[in-house]
């Protein structure tokens, strides 16, 4: 079993690109992002940490936010990816593919199941 703090650090590192990837599809409001991420097993330690991340991405101009008041619904802050965010996401995708391949290559001999799952997913 992996060390909890190692997993937390790993999640912290990939959570931002995952949020950017969700926003690349379409603008989303906070709870929507949290729920989408929560569907992916093991990606989030706690739902609340997504909000500080959104704030950081906004202050780094990777994400912009806009209040929208839809009919019959409460006002929501919608987050959209910016040009800089898109560029960051593209860069991460290229690096991640290579990174994940390297890690898989090392981990495969220890746990063959991981390699099998990776193959099935891809």
């Amino acid at each position, binding site marked *: 079993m992996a060390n909890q703090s190692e997993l937390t650090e790993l999640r912290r590192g990939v959570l931002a690109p995952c949020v950017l990837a969700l926003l690349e599809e379409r603008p989303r409001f906070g709870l929507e992002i949290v729920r989408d991420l929560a569907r992916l097993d093991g990606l989030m330690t706690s739902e609340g940490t997504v909000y*500080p991340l959104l704030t950081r991405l906004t202050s780094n101009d990777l994400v912009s936010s806009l209040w929208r008041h839809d009919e019959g619904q409460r006002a929501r802050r919608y987050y959209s990816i910016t040009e800089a965010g898109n560029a960051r996401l593209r860069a991460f995708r290229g690096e991640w593919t290579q990174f994940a391949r390297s890690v898989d290559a090392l981990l495969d001999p220890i746990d063959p199941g991981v390699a099998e799952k990776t193959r099935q997913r891809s």
Partner: protein
Amino acid sequence: MTITETPQHETEAYLRRLDRAARWLPRDQAAELHEQIESHLAESLPPDVDQRGVREALAQLGEPHVLVREAAGPRRRLRTRLRRVRWWTWTVVGIVVAGLVSTATVLAVTLIPEYRAPDMICSCGFALTSHFDNVHEREIEPFNATEVALRSNHQGFEFDIYNTGHVTQTVLGLDSRPLNGYLHNYTLRIGSRDEDGAPLTNRRFVAAPVTIAPGQDRAVVVSWNHLECSAPRAEYTVTSVYLRVRIGPFTRSEKIDLGGPVVFKVPKPSTTTPATRCISAAAHEH
């Protein structure tokens, strides 16, 4: 009185804890985090949620201090803390810094001139042997060697020092270094008043320390008893004297040049004196 916990109380308590934890975040960031979490709870909790459901939702959100730590980010914590320092704290810090700068400036203005005060200078002087009076003194010749024949074991010289600076100087005594490398056990006496021009015998001398105001003159007599046996024609040359001087809080050595070298010479042997002799006060007193 018993307070019944309701789901609303739970969420309000959570938001209060969040606000407390976010005190050191920048205000706009803290407000945004509050708004995000409040909005999250309002949207995610169904209207008929029970207390257990609220607790589960809050547990899913995570501890407030963890959210705040995430909001600050690893590299921003110090900067963020500094930003949250209240205006009056900065005011106090500013006053303290201004006080320190002012004190340093005052010290620099008042102390550095003292530190940089010029050494006292020597005006005319006399080499002395035997009795220190006008009869046995020999004026030190500027730039030329002044030869003085030793007639007793009591020798020395008199010179005037003049405080040319703008700060008072206090002569503490002679520096510990020997006059010319081998003459020791000096006695220092300094004129108690500015008596420039008065006969040496009429002047009043005191032991150090003596304070000399700017522009004032003092006579100084440095003498010693030469108790060693001297070879004939031995010479003891002295060109300067080092004084320990205190100026304000500083103590330093000041080199007082005598104007020209003073050479104390042992007379050449005569047929009646041995090749090596001890100069004795008894034999050569008047």
